[in-house]
């Protein structure tokens, strides 16, 4: 029976007993002890970079929420408070790595360098995906929960087969770890030694359902062990720790040791989406407590204390963020033009007669409408 088991010891897979933290909520460095692996503070310029992108990301997020109030976006799932996860994970990747996002990762995609207006196409309602997934190496934002992780596993394996030294990063929320596809993805990635990183943003709620109703596991990170997948848990509001753990995960994947799972403990400060009323399922005190763990303020305090950020630099970034928001608002101010005939464009790469027939019907309807309108104006 021995040959059916793998050499890896359970100890090598276990996460640290407590979430990895490099900076405490006040921004003071935390002495590392008791973690499963050594985690080094990222370099000063990486920390400056991630702080800048978190500021930009948050401003983008606030603007997107504002756009829902102005009726310019149909819906927006905010990720305010989750900046360290989304920005930290993305800034640790190279442009060659693949990303598999959900509806919640708009901020991550903006950080990835995708035009914010293209990112918001899904939520605006003008297209299911506004960017080119192959060109951006970023899959379409995915709404059916956990399904994107299996794609990430497949792509990670494909990258390995192609001899590309790249990973596929799949984001997922805490609730979605209960879905079957989460488990199938971990198992596939493990069995095929695929360089996939599963990044769980444990923001404590799945719409209204708290983590306690989702799982009895001591930590979501532990779910990886049963699949032979190495894992770690991290303070998801500590950008330095997120990047350090990402570095370890990337090193693990790139050195051919298979997939890695990260559980980031964080919190969703806003409601599930603008359409949700979070006061029905959680207290204001709870939210206030998490506000005190703000990832941006935390890193800013550290950077300032270390002489890595001064007022001028901070103001420049905040101005850049304002410009981003203004530009986004202006560009979203016009109604998008969506050609009705595009309905039929991409059902198949090679269309069937039945799609062609439906297209001809709508074309005729539009033609008739146009003629009727012309007659009225005549």
């Amino acid at each position: 029976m021995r040959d059916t088991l793998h050499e890896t010891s359970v100890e090598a897979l276990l996460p640290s007993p407590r979430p990895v933290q490099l900076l405490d909520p006040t921004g003071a460095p935390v002495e590392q002890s008791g973690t499963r692996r050594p985690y080094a503070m990222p370099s000063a310029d990486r920390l400056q970079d991630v702080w800048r992108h978190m500021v930009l990301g948050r401003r983008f997020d606030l603007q997107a929420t504002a756009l829902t109030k102005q009726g310019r976006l149909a819906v927006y799932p905010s990720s305010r408070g989750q900046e360290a996860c989304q920005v930290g994970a993305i800034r640790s990747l190279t442009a060659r790595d693949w990303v598999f996002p959900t509806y919640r990762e708009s901020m991550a995609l903006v950080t990835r360098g995708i035009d914010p207006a293209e990112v918001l196409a899904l939520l605006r309602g003008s297209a299911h995906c506004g960017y080119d997934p192959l060109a951006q190496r970023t899959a379409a934002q995915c709404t059916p929960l956990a399904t994107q992780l299996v794609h990430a596993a497949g792509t990670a394996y494909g990258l390995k087969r192609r001899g590309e030294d790249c990973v596929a990063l799949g984001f997922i929320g805490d609730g979605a770890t209960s879905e079957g596809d989460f488990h199938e993805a971990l198992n596939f990635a493990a069995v095929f030694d695929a360089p996939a990183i599963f990044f769980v943003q444990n923001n404590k709620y799945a719409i209204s359902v708290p983590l306690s109703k989702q799982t009895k596991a001591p930590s979501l990170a532990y779910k990886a062990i049963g699949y032979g997948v190495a894992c770690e848990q991290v303070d998801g509001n500590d950008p330095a720790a997120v990047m350090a753990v990402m570095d370890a995960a990337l090193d693990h994947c790139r050195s051919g040791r298979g997939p890695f799972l990260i559980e980031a403990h964080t919190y969703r400060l806003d409601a599930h989406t603008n359409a949700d009323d979070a006061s029905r399922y959680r207290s204001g005190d709870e939210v206030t407590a998490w506000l005190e763990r703000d990832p941006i303020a935390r890193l800013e305090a550290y950077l300032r204390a270390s002489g890595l950020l001064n007022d001028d630099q901070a103001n420049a970034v905040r101005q850049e963020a304002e410009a981003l928001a203004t530009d986004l608002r202006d560009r979203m101010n016009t109604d998008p033009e969506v050609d009705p005939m595009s309905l039929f464009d991409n059902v198949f790469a090679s269309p069937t007669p039945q799609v062609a027939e439906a297209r001809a019907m709508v074309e005729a309807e539009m033609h008739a409408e146009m003629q009727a309108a012309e007659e009225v104006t005549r």
Partner: protein
Amino acid sequence: MTTIDAPAPAVAGPTTLTFAKAINQALRDAMTADDDVLVFGEDVGTLGGVFRVTDGLTRDFGEDRCFDTPLAESGIVGFAIGLCYTGFRPVVEMQFDAFAYPAFEQIASHVAKMHNRTGGKVTLPMVIRVPYAGGIGGVEHHCDSSEGYYAHTPGLKVYTPATPQDAYWMLREAIADPDPVIFMEPKALYWSKAEVDTSSPVEPVGRAAVRRPGKEVTLISYGPSVPLALKAADAAEQEGWDVEVIDLRSIVPLDDETVLASVRRTGRCVVVSEAQGFAGVAGELASRISERCFHSLEAPVLRVSGLPTPYPAPMLEHTYLPGVDRILDAIDRLQFDDQPDTTFSEGARG
């Protein structure tokens, strides 16, 4: 990893093959032609699949090209989607029709929609092979006719060959197609044998085949029902009816042209399907024909199909499945004006 032996030489020219062997040959030839074609699923490797359809592929092409996966259908299909992003052309096997359902989420939400969701940027040139339908005495969940679920989902092509020749070329075309194809293989036909010409393609997929010309009744069939329809047409001939048998070959795309031209000539039509009739492919055909051939019809379009019950235990499958008699009865109900005073009787139909 096993070493890669030279693949078995492609069979040139016509040769007699079973349906299963024809699919095997199509996989071999597609894998030889294109290194990016990968075959995977449950038991498809060393074992060669429970129906031996993938027999010898791992031996001949290596474990990198034909491999076993964990036992998880959603994983298999989702993994294939991910591989498409990196330029592979996966051909995956669902072991049996009803065991594809765990993958239905991936199939309906992603395989079918990815091209559309991404504004045409991403194509999924994958094939999902589904051994389907009954007539083999299988225990529960081994005999479903699930084509309706797939055909009802825009974005999926649904092929269902009925001859070894079609099985070979339609699979080659499915693998070459940039669109995802659900390739439905009638299990009861796996052991049927016929001549297969691998050197020249049959008509392109999307064209129905007239398997038997006739002037008085159009019998529409596909997949497992084609041999049955042909048998029924022979029996009807004994009773004086000249029946045309059409094999759709693919449900999506559907060859309206061939179907409608035939019904306009014959004025009478029966659709045969092994799937239960309610809300299914046969009903779709009946309404298309009624909508488009109303003035040519001498009688309503009738359906002969599986019963609106779950597929039964093996001892009842012959009651469940459409048979020659039910088809002949339907032809009777088409109310020929010149009802010949024929010899057929209740008794003759058992």
